[in-house]
């Protein structure tokens, strides 16, 4: 009985159900569109596992998502909701890209400078929202949404500035200098048969472990969690709630900013003008939810989302719209969001049974 109860209590159980339901609903829409789900999902799987090279690409796609996932997960654990990871990601990417183009430094200083500056940019972008919340009582979700769009248009503005814009038209910046790239050494990339293989995934995993240590093993993490759990109780215990909120948002924003840096310095090497929001921040919400807001869970959730994104990009080969990934992920979020009530329901049923 206890075993059954622990299964019904565990997040993983509900997440798995949500993912299965997401795939089933995705299959229904594929069938409506006259596409065999077996063919489409087969393609999805073979695009990820077919060759070692594909797995490397999955890691490349996953790295920025692990960062934004960590960003959102960290905010969840500390009782704020960072729906602004999108904007922080964008300012991080913008900062890394601008410095990568404009500065000409040796690699050993150029790379850390760009990465740290991106983290700072993301952190500050988030901190402004934190200050608005603490000083003026403005709900963070509202100001995050505004700041996402300000970042969006700011980025499009900067991308089109002459010093940064690629010569001869196009809708992207110049390529960042090679000295700022996070790429693996040439020889290793040749060996892996992947030109964009980069250190992003290593940084992402390191960040996840670091965040896990902060949350679980340090006084700082304990304080932040205490404020998130019960701010008046924490206040009573002598914890400065305002300072905690600001610290939490600053760290959360820095993580998203790092995601932007990894995307630019690792994978793409340049920043393109946005037609719509890139979505890394919102995908981070999904990653955090699938990973049950645990830093280590975010690694696996990020890999899952990365695989879906990379595999999804290959779906057009079998004439299936890649947007089926959005449908599946949307359903996954929705079902995780409503799973709480099932947990309560199953819990009370089990209790009744035990009572008998």
């Amino acid at each position, binding site marked *: 009985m206890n075993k059954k109860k622990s299964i019904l209590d565990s997040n993983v159980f509900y997440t798995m159900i949500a993912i299965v339901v997401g795939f089933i609903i995705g299959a229904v829409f594929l069938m409506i*569109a006259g596409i065999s789900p077996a063919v489409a999902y087969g393609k999805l799987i073979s695009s990820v596992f077919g060759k070692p090279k594909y797995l490397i690409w999955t890691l490349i796609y996953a790295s920025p998502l692990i960062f934004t996932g960590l960003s959102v997960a960290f905010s969840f654990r500390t009782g704020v909701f960072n729906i602004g990871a999108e904007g922080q990601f964008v300012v991080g990417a913008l900062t890394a890209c601008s410095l990568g183009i404009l500065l000409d430094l040796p690699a050993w200083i150029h790379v850390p400078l760009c990465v740290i500056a991106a983290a700072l940019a993301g952190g500050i972008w988030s901190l402004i929202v934190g200050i608005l919340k603490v000083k003026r009582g403005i709900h963070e979700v509202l100001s995050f949404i505004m700041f996402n769009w300000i970042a969006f248009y700011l980025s499009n*503005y900067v991308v089109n500035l002459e010093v940064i814009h690629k010569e001869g038209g196009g809708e992207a910046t110049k390529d960042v200098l090679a000295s700022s790239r996070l790429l693996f050494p040439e020889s290793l990339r040749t060996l892996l048969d992947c030109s964009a293989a980069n250190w992003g995934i290593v940084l992402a995993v390191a960040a996840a472990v670091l965040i896990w240590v902060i949350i679980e093993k340090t006084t700082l993490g304990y304080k932040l969690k205490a404020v998130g759990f019960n701010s008046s109780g924490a206040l009573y215990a002598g914890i400065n709630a305002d300072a905690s909120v600001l610290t939490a948002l600053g760290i959360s924003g820095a993580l998203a900013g790092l995601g932007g840096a990894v995307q630019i310095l690792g994978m793409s090497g340049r920043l393109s003008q946005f037609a719509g929001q890139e979505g890394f921040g919102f995908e981070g919400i999904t990653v955090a939810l699938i990973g049950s807001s645990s830093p280590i869970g975010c690694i696996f959730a990020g890999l899952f989302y990365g695989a879906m994104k990379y595999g999804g990009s290959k779906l057009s080969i079998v004439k299936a*719209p890649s947007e089926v990934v959005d449908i599946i992920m949307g359903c996954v979020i929705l079902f995780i969001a409503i799973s709480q009530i099932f947990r309560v329901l199953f819990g009370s049923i089990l209790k009744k049974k035990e009572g008998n």
Partner: protein
Amino acid sequence: MDVIIKNLGLLINATLIATPPLLLAALGSCFSERSGVVNIGIEGMMTIGAFTGAVMGLTTGNGWLAFFCAGLAGALFGLIHAIACVSFHADQTIAGTAINFLGPGLAVFLCKAMFNNSSDTPAMDPSCKLPKLFEGVFPAGSFWSNVLNVYSVAYLVFVLAFVCWFVFYKTRFGSHLRAVGEHPEACESLGIDVYRVRYICVILSGFLAGLGGAFVTLATINQFRPSVIVGQGFIAIAAVIFGKFSPEGAVKACLLFGLCSGIKTLAGQSNTISPNLISMIPYIVTILALVLFVGKAHTPAANGKIFVKSK
């Protein structure tokens, strides 16, 4: 002088074209937020409305019917949001995020499935679109012709705003919905069905957001593209906050943001100010308004909080 008058006419015209989609979505958002359900899925609901409007316009050739169907498509997503948030006690912001994945995802998915893997629908014949009211009444190129060169729905939207205001403040349902957003427990003890009120409001917000999206595809332009809505749903939310969660405030805020958009359209042609900088204005203005005027007070008290029926 003539140039100024001509440009003024064009500016008013551009404002009148940019405002209705925002206002429709914002009015819907007022209902949802005031009843205590945060709806950040407006963007997704608008996108599905924009797509449905374009497809129905293409297939039926009847602009009004297509417009109505777009509302229904939005309402369907409103229903999903209501089921998740009201009955299943989901976190409202997260459910809204899911809607923002599902709406645009589904729209582009279906578009590719229906139109030979293209993410744009074909362009519509003008006869399929919503009609213009004052076409040919004033001589072409004159001030009034410039100003009133708008689709008839644009005028209807302002009438609708008045209707919403009336419902909000002059009807029983209106007082119920405002009360439910402030203190659901008290409402329940008075015999008001909180769930029912919230369901109606959230579905209505989806319906109006769907109409707003369809205005873009059936009036402003003549086809669906993935980028038709980008940000308008969020501007509508900004307008609702800026307008202190009331229909009359939403009208003013949407006109202001519509004017920003109008300036952007005109400035984009002359290339003097970066359209990207002008695009930021609604968001910055909203933040400033929150900092300077609105403060803590005006958010409906029960907004975003889960309400569990007793019994």
